[in-house]
């Protein structure tokens, strides 16, 4: 399996890409920045499995926590409401300093 590139607590950004095919990264979360909540383990790449290939090497899968207010600027509810989404490693990049509008 590929090694886990991110640790829990790290800020990550979901890539804003729109490839064709079977992709398990929802549209609405692409381009959003969140925090790694945990590493779930490693699983075969679903984009490859959908093409009848073996999906190996397995890829680290993360649960990333996003603040609702950052995903939907007009979100109505508690400031602390969050959304947690499972995202495979190849869809994540380190959040650049200052690009998520949050103080460090």
């Amino acid at each position: 399996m590929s090694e886990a590139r991110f640790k829990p607590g790290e800020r990550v950004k979901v890539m804003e890409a729109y490839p064709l095919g079977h992709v398990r990264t929802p549209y609405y979360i692409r381009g959003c920045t969140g925090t790694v909540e945990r590493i779930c383990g490693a699983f075969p790449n679903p984009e490859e499995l959908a093409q009848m290939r073996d999906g190996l090497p397995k890829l680290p899968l993360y649960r990333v926590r996003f603040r609702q207010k950052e995903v939907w600027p007009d979100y109505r509810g508690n400031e602390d409401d969050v959304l947690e989404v499972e995202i495979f490693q190849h869809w994540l990049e380190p959040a650049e300093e200052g690009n998520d509008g949050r103080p460090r």
Partner: protein
Amino acid sequence: MADQGSYRPLSYFQLMEISLRELLVEKGIVTDEQVDATVEDMRNRTPERGAKVVARAWVDAGFKQRLLENGTKACEELGLDVPALKLLAVENTPQVHNAIVCTLCSCYPRMLLGIPPEWYKSRNYRSRMVREPRAVLAEFGLQIPEATQIRVHDSTADMRYIVLPMRPAGTEGWSEERLATLVNRDSMIGVALAKGPND
């Protein structure tokens, strides 16, 4: 005229299912017995399984801890077979309310809750639950206090989720079996609370 009974022509999908199944059996890929056994197994999976897990967690703090750490292993203690690494139990508290959705399709903890309800698979629930969870929960009759944090879990990949609802007040001293009767399906998806002792 002879009684026609409840005869209905087969729907497109029923016809497709029968054709595919007969073909698989004819080609020796599966047997009728295997198909029957699988269907039977699916029918036996009902929310009562999940309720058993929740009730145990309510009465046994050690079990609850193990469930939150490794859902699969904890379920094994109850004789429930859950695929490795896959189950995540998320706990409701007065400060945090959890709810589950699968925006991409209909991923659902079938091993503990059985077949998902129709609304869980609807476009309405799937698209709005991540966007305006408080409004959706209100439509289910569940008003979450403004001060409570809502955590929505989008089940997009390999994990499956079960919500551990809060134990209702007034159930002190209840047996595990009796407590399990308060745990309904919707409370384990996070769109309802567990029933109260007088509900």
